[in-house]
């Protein structure tokens, strides 16, 4: 077993032996934990994974089938329409025990199995945190002078570029937390932004956390402009930046988390160009 602690949750991992995986997870490794919150078992299978017997709920994106065994969360990925599965994830009802398997499909055009394994654990993590203390919000996040700030927007808007400007101009008291998928947790209703090993295309993530002081939603505009938005609008926009689970109970938990964020933390809409002025606008209101 290898042990990790991510956003306050302890994981015991069995079978995750890829060098790539261990390297990406290194900053979150801890010494052995007697009673881990979550135990995850992994195996690389030699053959495609047969379709399971569970009750089918829904297919999303044409390749992922969700199932229910009456309490747990189960999904299998197909590598092509009507094929057998190349990935399985079976999470028990309280997300304490997880069984996973991958079938290597690199030869037929899939991503390398070690990369898929790492990303799969990222998905498992989303379930584990939703069942406990928070959720992942798609955003580039920083800690500036002790204040956690997340910058959220659809991919391609320039989140990472914007936070890189903070590092460039205010690097002495700014630290990146995670460039793509930080976890928001709550401690006595106070939200915190935490690093996770999963940071999208970049490898920019740090194992730190900071109290969340502002949520900034980015939009590319010819001029810089910032305004605080209503709770209504904040809910609606944030819903676009979180994973919407296929399971009703988890969707409800997601909505409760969004509610906690928008009622505790100011949410701003920043129309911005890619320059220092946009950074300074945000600095002034924090």
């Amino acid at each position, binding site marked *: 077993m290898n042990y990790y602690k991510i956003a306050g949750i302890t994981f015991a991992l069995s079978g995750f032996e890829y060098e790539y995986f261990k390297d990406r997870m290194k900053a979150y490794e801890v010494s052995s934990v007697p009673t881990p919150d979550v135990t995850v078992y992994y195996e690389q299978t030699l053959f495609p994974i047969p379709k399971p017997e569970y009750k089918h709920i829904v297919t999303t994106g044409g390749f992922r089938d969700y199932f229910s065994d009456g309490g747990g969360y189960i999904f299998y990925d197909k590598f092509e329409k009507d094929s057998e599965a190349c990935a399985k994830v079976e999470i028990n009802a309280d997300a304490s025990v997880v069984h996973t398997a991958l079938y290597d499909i690199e030869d037929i055009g899939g991503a390398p199995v070690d990369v898929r394994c790492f990303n799969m654990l990222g998905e498992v993590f989303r379930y584990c945190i939703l069942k406990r203390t928070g959720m992942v919000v798609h955003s580039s996040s920083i800690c500036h002078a002790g204040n956690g700030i997340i910058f959220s927007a659809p991919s391609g808007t320039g989140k990472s570029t914007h936070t890189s400007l903070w590092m460039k101009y205010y690097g002495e008291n700014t630290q990146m937390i995670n460039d793509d998928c930080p976890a928001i947790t709550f401690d006595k209703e106070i939200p915190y932004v935490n690093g996770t090993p999963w940071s999208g295309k970049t490898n920019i993530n740090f194992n730190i956390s900071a109290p969340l002081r502002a949520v900034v939603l980015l939009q590319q505009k010819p001029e810089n402009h910032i305004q605080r938005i209503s709770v*209504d609008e904040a*809910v*609606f926009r944030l819903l676009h930046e979180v994973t919407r689970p*296929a399971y*009703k109970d988890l*969707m409800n938990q997601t909505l409760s988390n969004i509610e906690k964020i928008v009622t505790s933390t100011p949410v701003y809409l920043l129309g911005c160009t890619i320059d220092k002025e946009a950074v300074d606008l945000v600095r002034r209101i924090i």
Partner: protein
Amino acid sequence: MKVKDSFVLRKIAGSHVVVPIGSETADFNGMMTLNETGAMLFGMLNKDRSLEDLTNAMLSEYDVSAVEAEEDVKAFVDTLEKAGMLE
């Protein structure tokens, strides 16, 4: 008519939000916010209801004429229909 099971209505921080579940990809069709009236009608549509059921509920809850209630209900149902929310 009835709303599909795959849509969840929730009151979040004072606003009524309808969210589709089971479509975690980039497809955001079907997400909407509702006012009080919309939320009441949407809530009723968890069960099979007729236009008349909904119109009667409008009339007993709000101070509107029968004609207004019927028009509002039709417009609302039409919106849900176009968003693919009815089964």
